[in-house]
């Protein structure tokens, strides 16, 4: 009898768990320190094409040169697109369902991916105005912004 027919197909359950320590770099560190210490959101402007990058970039991919001035952006912005994730994965910082958006902060040319919170999930629409809610305890990470919430009409 062919031995291949009688083999149980084994599975080796394992994991890759290599701890990483990523360098944020000078540009990103400035961004996170401002977020942490002053609840300010900074972008960087390319002096070639005038694009204001948020999160800030050391370089402009299009002009391929160093960006120049730091620019304070937001704190409010406009929702470019969004989704409500209904399933859970182990990496989500808050419980599903959770909403993500890409937010163009006032003064920025690019969008920032982040969480949406304090919001009726059914009422989320592209184009709505949003403002950041900062964590009380901030560690110098992107989650120092807890989420963006709708700006209440004046």
């Amino acid at each position, binding site marked *: 009898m062919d031995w291949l027919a009688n*083999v149980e197909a084994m599975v*080796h*359950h394992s994991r*890759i768990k290599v701890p990483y*320590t990523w*360098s*944020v770099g000078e540009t990103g*560190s400035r961004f996170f320190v401002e977020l942490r210490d002053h609840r300010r959101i900074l972008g960087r402007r390319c002096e070639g094409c005038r694009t204001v990058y948020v999160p800030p970039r050391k370089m402009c991919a299009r002009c391929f040169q160093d960006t120049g001035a730091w620019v304070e952006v937001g704190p409010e912005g406009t929702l470019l697109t969004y989704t409500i994730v209904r399933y859970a994965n182990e990496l989500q910082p808050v419980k599903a369902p959770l909403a993500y958006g890409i937010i163009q902060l006032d003064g920025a040319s690019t969008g920032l991916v982040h969480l949406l919170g304090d919001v009726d999930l059914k009422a989320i629409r592209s184009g709505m105005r949003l403002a950041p809610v900062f964590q009380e305890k901030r560690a110098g990470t992107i989650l120092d912004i807890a989420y963006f919430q709708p700006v209440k009409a004046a």
Partner: protein
Amino acid sequence: MSGEKQELLVMQSGEKEQPFHYAVGRYGSKFLMELRDHKKLLGIRCPKCRKVYVPPRQVCGPCYEKMHELVEVGPGGTLVGYTILRFHFVDPETGHPKPVPYGYGFIRLDGADNAFQHFIDVRDESKIKVGARMRAVFKEQRKGNLADIQHFEVIDPVKEIGKPL
């Protein structure tokens, strides 16, 4: 800002891990089954070049032939090369330091043409020489993985320098 030394941050992945469910395949599974159930080591023979490979796999790389004939090999063998790991490093299966020192050797099992790597018992380092006769020591509780072999131990150290392989 200027003149002040800038704070440079790092981000850490901490305890994050990626789980995997690696298929052993039928050829490897057969090896692990025999190891678990009968404390036997299996190789597979290429129908063309007649070389016996451990662990068994489907293809002979050099001949590009499909293999089928299983051959029992070992549990004795010859030490082809070895080292003793003494430095600290992170075990990527746990994210934590791997216990060192430990012996790591390639053993050409009797009846096989390639070498099989495993722990080697280094409690008496003076006995560990390239060319030493070794044998597999099996665990009592076997689960169907490579750790069912405790390690290989020296049964006959050699004095002369032998040409390996």
